Structures are given as structure tokens and as C-alpha cells.
């Protein structure tokens, strides 16, 4: 259906808990604890106690099997009306984007009046699985009927089976970590160490400045004794960042450029965004920060080396711009998720590259350069951290507020994800 005939889906506001580096402030918090806290802060900010919301949707990338109904269980632990339906979504780091985008579509279609979307992740309280061989034996044991058969199954267990499988961020099909994948892309696009460190430094400085001016006062609620993202280094300098040793792409030797400083750390956190129809916002005297205009997903074949793992947003953006008759320069804010500084810089470079835009995106001319002063103006994941599924909600709520403060214009949001995927979205200011 065309965009014109649908009604607007409005971003009313958001709430997240401060993001915490893995195994620090939230070491004893579960995904459910954190998402419930994000929800409760949202409920309190907008007076939603006892209210039935049309739907709550979100998810986690690292999820215990017992959390099969993570979002619904969080709703049941909240002060929302417990007749609020909820469901889990999972699309790696784009989980939050997909959840919120789909809710916006349902609002546009008139299926929902109000919705909450978001996500949560913890690498501190990550599920640990038993080894595949032990799992096989345990399943055999559960099927065994006679004592003899049970003993026979048990007898197969060897000490080596007891080593657990911890989750990693490695790609199942390549065995490479995400950082090692990105290091190939970073190198292919000739992104320098200095450019990456500059982006990281700007992220920390911009995030700290946003805290200082109270920007997050109505976007964040403290949790577990933390009131600011504890990965943020307001006093970081190029010199300090320059001293760090490469953490990814070590096989590149001297030309390795990706460090712990210009890559996101493993992070715990949760975010939630409140959306509604215009009628819903008006009848509840709620603010309307921005319209959720449109969103687009893309995926690339990184397995056979045709494209870099985290380059899908470059493709999604081209399609999204075309569908909305916009050029890349028609935006007042660009929020490009900083999985790695190299990801952002490779994407920007690709958009400027005639050959890439022609061969890969099928365009007559490159999408071109963006005004870098409009990029991640209040900091992004390099400073705030990146609890996978929570990042989309963080960006969408902050961007909606930025647009509302400005009063006019639009923003482009881009989030890359594991599996060679990515989701991009357009928001439009409401004054």
C-alpha cells in the first residue's frame, strides 16, 4: 500500500536503563529484570499505569530457553494492564528496529492505537549450553524406559562432555567473530586507524555533552545504582585511543586498525519506545516527537565474500530513499549505529563510491557524502555501548527527541546486524 493512504505512526517517547559494560553493574540482572525496568520507567514517564497497550514487542539476541515469552513475562511484571498482549521478535542487533518498525506499520494500518517496542540484552547473564554430545546423551536418557537403558545412557557420559558451550559473537557459517569480519571490510575500504579513533572520540564527547545538558533526563531511568552509561569516557583523547592495541583483524598484522576503543564492548541494557496513532497521543495528552515514516531491511551474502558482514544497511538505505523519493542529503540527522567505527566509515565511503553505488546498489550516481556534523550528534554505540537488541530503541527514542527539539526535518537511522543483515528507517520531526 502507498505511504500516503496510511495514517501516521507517532513516536511519543522512550525510556532505557543506562547501558553497562558486561560483568559490571548488571551482573546479577536478567533480561527480564532489565526489560521490566525499562518498561516501568516508560509507564511512569507517561502515566500508563493500569493501561492496556495495543501490543508490546521486543526481544533479546542472547536468550535463555526459559525466556520463550520474555516480553509477555516482562509485561506481567509491570504495572501495565495485564491484558496487554506481547510477543518476542528476534533479528540479531536489528531486533529493536524490526520490533518498532513492525509496530509502527500496525498503527498505520489502524490495527493498533498504541504500542511499545524495544529490546534487551545481557552478556553477563548469558545462557550457557551443555555440549552437543552431552545434550544427545541426556535426550537419550529421557527417552529410555528401563533402568538398564537409563544406566546405559548414563554410562556414555565422559568428563570431556561436561565442558559447557558459552555463547559467542562468532558467525556460525564462517566461524569468524564480528570484529574480524569488520576488519576485512575496514581494510577493503581503506579506513584508517586515525579516522576510526576520531569517530570513537566524537562519540564519547557527544554523549557526555548530551548528558551534561540534560538531554537524557526524559530518556533514561537509572537502574541498579547506575545513572549513566558506564562505558562512556568523557575524558578520552586521541592519544589514549591511539595507545590501544588492535583487538580484531590481528591476522592483518601491521595494518590492523580495530581496537577496543573503536569497537563496541559487550554490554548489558534495555530500551523501550512508546508509539501511537495521532488520535491516541492527542486523547491521552501525550507528546508527539516524530513520525515513524518508513523502514527497510536488507541482507548481503557475506559467507562467500561477496560483501562485508555489516554492509547491509548501505543496500537498505538505497531502496528506502528511492521508495520515499529522497536523496541521502535530505536529512537533518544521521544515526548510524557504531557497531565498530569501521562499520560507520565503510558505509559512508560506500555511499560516496561511484563503482559501489553503480555495481552493488544499481544506481546511476553515487548516493554521495553526508554532512558529518549531522552524524551521531549525541553520541552512539561506541560511547554508550551496544546491548544488541536494545540499541534500536535507544536510537529511535533519542532521534525522535532530537527531531522534536529541532522542530523540523527528518532523520535516517541505520543499524547493522549479524547474519549480514541490516535495518534502516526514516523519522520525520513533529513540532
Amino acid at each position, binding site marked *: 500500500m502507498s505511504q500516503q493512504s496510511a495514517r501516521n505512526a507517532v513516536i511519543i517517547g522512550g525510556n532505557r536503563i543506562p547501558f553497562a559494560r558486561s560483568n559490571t553493574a548488571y551482573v546479577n540482572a536478567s533480561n527480564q529484570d532489565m526489560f521490566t525496568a525499562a518498561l*516501568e520507567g516508560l509507564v*511512569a*514517564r507517561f502515566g500508563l*499505569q493500569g493501561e492496556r497497550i495495543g501490543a508490546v514487542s521486543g526481544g533479546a539476541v542472547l536468550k535463555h530457553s526459559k525466556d520463550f515469552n520474555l516480553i509477555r513475562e516482562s509485561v506481567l511484571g509491570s504495572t501495565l494492564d495485564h491484558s496487554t498482549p506481547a510477543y518476542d521478535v528476534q533479528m540479531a542487533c536489528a531486533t529493536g528496529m524490526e520490533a518498532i518498525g513492525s509496530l509502527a506499520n500496525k498503527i498505520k494500518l489502524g490495527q493498533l492505537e498504541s504500542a511499545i517496542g524495544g529490546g534487551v540484552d545481557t552478556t553477563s547473564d548469558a545462557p550457557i549450553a551443555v555440549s552437543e554430545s552431552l545434550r544427545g546423551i541426556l535426550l537419550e536418557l529421557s527417552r529410555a524406559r528401563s533402568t538398564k537403558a537409563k544406566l546405559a545412557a548414563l554410562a556414555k557420559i565422559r568428563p570431556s562432555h561436561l565442558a559447557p558451550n558459552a555463547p559467542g559473537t562468532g558467525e556460525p557459517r564462517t566461524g569468524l567473530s564480528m570484529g574480524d569480519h569488520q576488519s576485512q571490510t575496514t581494510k577493503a575500504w581503506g579506513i584508517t586507524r586515525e579516522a576510526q579513533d576520531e569517530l570513537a572520540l566524537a562519540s564519547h564527547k557527544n554523549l557526555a555533552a548530551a548528558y551534561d545538558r540534560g538531554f537524557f*533526563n*526524559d530518556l533514561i*531511568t537509572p*537502574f541498579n545504582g547506575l*545513572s549513566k552509561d558506564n562505558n562512556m569516557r568523557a575524558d578520552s583523547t586521541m592519544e589514549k585511543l591511539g595507545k590501544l592495541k588492535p583487538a580484531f583483524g590481528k591476522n592483518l598484522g601491521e595494518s590492523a586498525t580495530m581496537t577496543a576503543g573503536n569497537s563496541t564492548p559487550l554490554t548489558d541494557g534495555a530500551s523501550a519506545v512508546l508509539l501511537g496513532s495521532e488520535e491516541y497521543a492527542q486523547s491521552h495528552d501525550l507528546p508527539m516527537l516524530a513520525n515513524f515514516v518508513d523502514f527497510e531491511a536488507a541482507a548481503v551474502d557475506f559467507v562467500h565474500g561477496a560483501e562485508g558482514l555489516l554492509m547491509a544497511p548501505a543496500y537498505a538505505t538505497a531502496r528506502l530513499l528511492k521508495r520515499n523519493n529522497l536523496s541521502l542529503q535530505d536529512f537533518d540527522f544521521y544515526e548510524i549505529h557504531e557497531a565498530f567505527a569501521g562499520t560507520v566509515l565503510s558505509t559512508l565511503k560506500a555511499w560516496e563510491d561511484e563503482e559501489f553505488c553503480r555495481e552493488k546498489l544499481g544506481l546511476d550516481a553515487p548516493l554521495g557524502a553526508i554532512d558529518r556534523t549531522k552524524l551521531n550528534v549525541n553520541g552512539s554505540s561506541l560511547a554508550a555501548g551496544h546491548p544488541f537488541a536494545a540499541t534500536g530503541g535507544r536510537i529511535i527514542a533519542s532521534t525522535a527527541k532530537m527531531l522534536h527539539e529541532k522542530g523540523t526535518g527528518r532523520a535516517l537511522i541505520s543499524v547493522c546486524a549479524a547474519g549480514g543483515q541490516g535495518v534502516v528507517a526514516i523519522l520525520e520531526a513533529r513540532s
Partner: protein
Amino acid sequence: MTDKYMELVNTGATKKLAKLLGLPRPPRLRRYSEQGPLLPGPLLVLGNSARAQELSDTLVSWGLDVCRHDAGDAKLGGLLLLLDELVHPEELSPIMLAAGRALRQLLPGARVVSFSRPATADDEPAVAAVRQGIDGIMRSVGREMRGGATANGIVLENSTSILSPSALASLQFFFSGRSAYVDGQFLRVRNDQGVLAEDFTKPLTGKVAVVTGAARGIGAAIAKTLARDGAQVVVVDMPQAGDSLVKVANAIGATTLQLDVTAADAAQQIMDHAIGRHGSLDLVIHNAGITRDKLLANMDAGRWDSVIAVNIASQLRMNEAFLKAGLPNLRIVSLASTSGIAGNRGQSNYAASKGGVIGMVRSSAKLFETNGGSIAAVAPGFIETDMTSKIPLGTRTVARMVLPSLMQGGLPQDVAEAISFLGSDAAAGLNGQVLRVCGQSLVGA
């Protein structure tokens, strides 16, 4: 600690022991519940006043069992002394001696309340003498009360009637459990403004109230009490206290506003939120406050300046903005402290700020009245909170048990009740009031 001690000295064998040893036995206070009666038993009215009969009818309409002049041997829930027409100290004798006999018939949690007129420099000497004498009487009676009973007075200024809305509202407040920890105090009725609530249990229906410093302690109790009394509440606290603030908000259907009250645009943010989200701003409770205690000889700029900035300068700035915005019927209630009245060792900065609140309230009364509003302050004495639990045990025990007439610290709830009352429309005639909620303590806390 207080609860356990109170339990021991008031029950069974340990009660007898405590009596024998002459240990202080703090009484259980009669606190407010929506279902409870206004007084625990019949009310005896002594003395004469113009419109006494109309007052009596009103008291009956409140569901009270009213006896005029004599109650026989009946146990009494309250004693009302009409002293507003006395012109000479010699006239006190019959009524006070009758009152003295009635004191022996008071039930636990009873109330003694007087109506009188203010002593001013323009009065005849004998008139001024009897009027000022009543002040001494009621404060003394307060000290003689037992079983959690209290004695307080209502002073009718500017020829206001005993039937003026704020006089009646003050009477209701003193009678009810809402005034449990108010003892030996006077409320001064300045004018005939104010409207009695149709429903005494919901005096703030339809009002939008903002409470600063609402994440914990007294602020959280205020927020809960205002919501109980019918207000839509907005809870405000520092961004760092946001998680506690959420719990307070979600328990009472409030909305949160994370805000540093010292921010230059704090008042604007409060108005934007209250009006934008709830349609109006009717009541602001300036509760946010900090202590940074140090003997003045050792005081540093950080401690001094932060206390002044948070506790008084922020309120002055916000009030100015509220006045400039011309909000109709806006009521303000500020938190003062008995430290601001009596002083306290190590609290010169805090006393400056809290004394400052009292000065600000008195001076701002006429400014807020212009738009139909009002301003008042509550000065808590020793209140059992996280803040006072840090005071050394010995000092704390003395502060809570020995010096106040009620022999115990108050609860955050006690402060909240006084604030809800002073912020209600019925209290409009009490504009400029500073009410102590201290159990008739002699010290600041």
C-alpha cells in the same frame, strides 16, 4: 527501634515494669484513616461565641456527638474551647477550670482545640493580655496531654468568623488523625477565602500537584498522600534518583519528571509537564532539600552553597516564574524545618535555607493571593527517615522521646498530612502560614 520500644512499654508485663521505672512511654498516635471517625468519642464545647449554635450544628453535620457546657461523666473524644470573645484574664477562670475537669475524661487520641483572637498592639491591654495568655494556656495543655491526645489553637485574625471556611477546615484538620503529630500549635485564619471540600476524604479532587524530591522519605509520603486525597500527582526528583521515583509513581498513578530543581528552567519544565500532560498546575510542593552539616567554623563553600542553592534559591526562582506565568489559584507548600526556627548545631547553612523558606512564605503570601492562590510552609521536627536514621543513637533517642510532648519522632506521613491540608482549597484563608509538625518539640532536627 521506636516501634519496638513503644510496643514494650505499652503492653503486658513490660508495660508495668516501664511504669515502675518511670521510663518514658511514648503513646500510640491516632493517625488518619479514610474510614475512621473524626474524633474517637463525643465532643464537649465550652465557652461562648457569636454563632456558637451554627458551629454546633455544623459539628453535628460532621457526624460528631456534641455536648454543650457539660458532658457528665462521659469519656470524651474532644474538647473545643470558644475563647474568642474574652476581654480580660479574669474571665478565664470558669472555663479553664471546667476544661481541666474535662481533661480527665479524655480518651486516647483525643483533641483539645481553642478558638481565639490574635493579641495585637492595637488591643486594649486587658484584651491583649487574655489573648496572649491563651497562647500560653494551649502550649501548656499540650504538654499535659497523655495517650497521644493533642492541644492546638485556631486564631481568628481580621475579624474572621468561626464559621469561615478555613476556620472550619482547621478544626477538621486538628480533630482528625491528619494532625496526629501536630501539638501545641496555632493556625491563623487570615480571611474568609477558601472552599470546604464536599468530600472530606478527597479534598484534592481534580487538582494537579507537583512534588519535588519525591523519590524517597517525606517526599514519597507527600506524593502518596496527595494521590490518596484525590490529586493527579507529578513526582519530581534528580535524574540519579529516577529508579526510586518510578516506584513511587507507579504505585500511585503519577507521572515522573526527572529534573534538577536548581536548573534555570525548572519551573518551565514543571509547568510544561503538568499543563501539557494533565491540563493544569494547581499545587506545587517544594520538598526537595539536602543537608551538608558542618560546624560554621569548619564550613566550606561547597557545603554552604549547595544547601542554599537547593533548599531556598531554587524555590525563590521557581516561585518567581510561577507568579510571572500568572497561574490561577496556584497553591504552594514549602518544607521548612524546626532547625530554621530554633537553630541546630552544625546546621547554620541548613537553618539559613529553612529560615529562608519561612521568610519567603510570609513575604510571598500577598503575591500569590493576587491570582487567588496561596503559599504556606510546614516545619517538621524530628521525623523518622533515612536522613535522621544517620543521627547517632543517643542524640536520636533524646530528640525523638524526651523533648517532644508526644515522646516520639514523627513519621513522613505526619508531615504529608499537614502539607495536603495546607495545599487544599479549604486552607486558602491560611495563606502565609508556617505550621510546625514536631510533636511539640523544643528542638530542631
